[in-house]
């Protein structure tokens, strides 16, 4: 794969992730917990991880967090999304690289969602210096099961078709 192809493809993935993030903020959730999100853009990170690798997934994840601040305008959410994105990326990479015999992409995605939530709640605990915020974690973990499952399911289909459809670019 040529360098220019890779750059274009990664920037396309970043923009898809941004669009998904903006889209999911307009979808109402049945539960009201700070930090509970659908995590649709996690799909993009997971697909990047599968097709390219850790470095590219990190680039997409960090770029997405930074540019999203320019769209939504909430600077305070940058810390939460950055910490969550970095930890979930590392967790998903380890799970995908070393435990892919045990977990399918669904398991990888659930682990990533769990890592994302733990990092976000820890950031909130650090910023507000109140240890009791950790009491939100059990509920967040249960919600991350559902979102992680569907994100993983979609990522299986996306990465399968993407690998097939783009094989002439990847092999060039």
């Amino acid at each position, binding site marked *: 794969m040529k360098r220019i192809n890779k750059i274009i493809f990664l920037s396309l993935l970043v923009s898809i992730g941004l669009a998904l993030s903006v889209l999911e903020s307009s979808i109402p959730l049945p539960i009201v917990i*700070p*930090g509970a999100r659908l995590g649709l853009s996690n799909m993009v990170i997971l697909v990047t991880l599968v097709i390219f690798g850790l470095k590219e997934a990190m680039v997409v994840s960090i770029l997405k967090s930074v540019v999203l601040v320019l769209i939504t305008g909430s600077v305070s959410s940058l810390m939460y999304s950055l910490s969550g994105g970095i930890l979930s990326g590392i967790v998903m990479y380890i799970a995908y690289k070393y435990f892919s015999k045990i977990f399918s992409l669904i*398991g990888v995605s659930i682990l990533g969602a769990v890592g994302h939530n733990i990092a976000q709640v820890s950031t*909130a605990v650090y*910023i507000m210096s*109140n240890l009791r*915020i950790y009491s939100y974690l059990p509920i967040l973990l249960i919600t991350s099961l559902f979102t992680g499952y569907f994100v993983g399911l979609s990522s299986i289909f996306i990465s399968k078709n993407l690998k097939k459809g783009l094989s002439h670019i990847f092999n060039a």
Partner: protein
Amino acid sequence: MTKGDKILIVAIIIISLVSLGFVKNNIVNYNEKYISIQVNGQEYKKVIFDNSVIGKTIPIETEFGYNLIEIGDGDVRVIEASCPDKLDVLQGAISSPGEMIVCLPNRLVIEIKGTTETREIDYISY
């Protein structure tokens, strides 16, 4: 979906339910409860539940944003907020010790705390 996925899902459900039970059990019966309003990690105001504070509203204006909270009969809720998502308003009222309302953009935590000792009576006249 592999066997490992299923084990992972069951494990996370068990862990979160156990820790949820732990959090709920940790809340013992307190003699008295009070509202602790914290902004950016520091206690901003402390309100003890009392007949005189029912229906009172407390505006919280800090460098991080504006919130208006209302105290009811043993519960407290946020009725106005300057944050974009208004999650703290949507959450409604909290009443038991250990419950909290968090507003991440405004760095606001409203927590109900309990004290195990009874409040000392200043003076009784017969």
